[in-house]
């Protein structure tokens, strides 16, 4: 039986379940969430305006620009387009990217990430990234909702590959199975001193 035949069988499930799933529309975010987002957007706008208006005497242009950081899956040699992370000027943070699974069904710890800033002026230069990892949903822990946060600063040559080992993440009684990692990459573009 193939995945396709399986999908066909899935189409024959009850009307109620299909109807329920069909009815999903954009859900309203909670009021608090909306205000946090509005505040974040406003703060970002203020920061961008301040950066634009501040006088510069070091010849660094700080107009907003976009750099790209790619996380490559070196085990397959392919780049997952969804791992492309847009970094804007300033201290920037990528969206959380979920690396699902730490067993044979997904990504493992020590996952290599190649960080490339596609900006010619940063070629062969040292760049600093902070990679923070959040692990959650570990079913063998007493509380399956436990979250474990870990972060590490990497200073690497542009284009270098970073990674980490099980020991960095593991702890006694901590089973890395059936869980997910959220990886957030942060970089301080202002420290690179290049026109963007």
């Amino acid at each position: 039986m193939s995945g396709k035949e399986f999908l066909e069988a899935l189409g024959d499930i009850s009307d109620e379940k299909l109807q329920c799933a069909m009815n999903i529309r954009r859900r309203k975010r909670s009021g608090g969430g909306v205000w946090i987002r509005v505040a974040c957007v406003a703060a970002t706008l203020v920061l961008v305006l301040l950066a634009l208006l501040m006088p510069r005497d070091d010849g660094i242009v700080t107009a907003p620009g976009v750099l790209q950081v790619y996380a490559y899956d070196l085990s397959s040699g392919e780049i997952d387009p969804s791992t492309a992370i847009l970094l804007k000027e300033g201290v920037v943070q990528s969206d959380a990217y979920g690396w699902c699974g730490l067993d044979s069904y997904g990504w493992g710890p020590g996952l290599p990430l190649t960080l490339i800033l596609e900006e010619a002026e940063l070629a062969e230069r040292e760049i600093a990234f902070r990679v923070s990892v959040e692990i959650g949903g570990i079913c063998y822990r007493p509380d399956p909702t436990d979250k474990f946060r870990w972060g590490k600063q990497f200073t690497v040559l542009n284009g270098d590959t970073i990674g980490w080992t099980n020991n960095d993440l593991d702890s006694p009684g901590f089973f890395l199975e059936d869980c997910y990692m959220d990886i957030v990459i942060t970089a301080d573009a202002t420290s690179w001193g290049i026109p963007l």
Partner: protein
Amino acid sequence: MEDEQILELFWQRPEQAIREVDQKFGAMCRWLAMNILRNAEDAEECVNDTYHGLWDAIPPARPQKLTPYIARITRNLALKRLTYGNAQKRQVSTVSFEELEECIPCHDSVETAMDAKELTRTLERFLDTLDPESRDMFLRRYGFFDSIEEIASGFGVSRSKVKSQLFRVRNKLRIYLAEEVQIYVG
């Protein structure tokens, strides 16, 4: 127009019935066909086939709920068309297929143990074990072939949450199917 009125039109056989269906369900059919076929021309043909199928099926059929009934026809026709298209062009199957294939413990054993109807019943029971959000996400992904982005947008959550949740559901499904196959084989 209410579903009941549209159904009544189909029973009376004026062609207005098709126009009404197109007006009410056309967007849904196109969206679903596009999700599966990723080709506007094929999707449009699939939608037309859906209307023909509907015309042939009602009467005698009198579905309780028109939305899932029509969605099912479109889905089946699109999948059939996709099979034909793949055979012709040797295309790689969609990501959704590959993701689900990981969940089938052992293809042969499932096939031996369960026929299509039994598999549907098993899936139905499995879906009952999920919380509503996980169930709907699962169906959006593998029932309606929504992209991760579309699901995240629809549920108002991040892409990583959708991926994590789908990953967990697939893992649960893998375990659930393995147990069910054991019961049938044993």
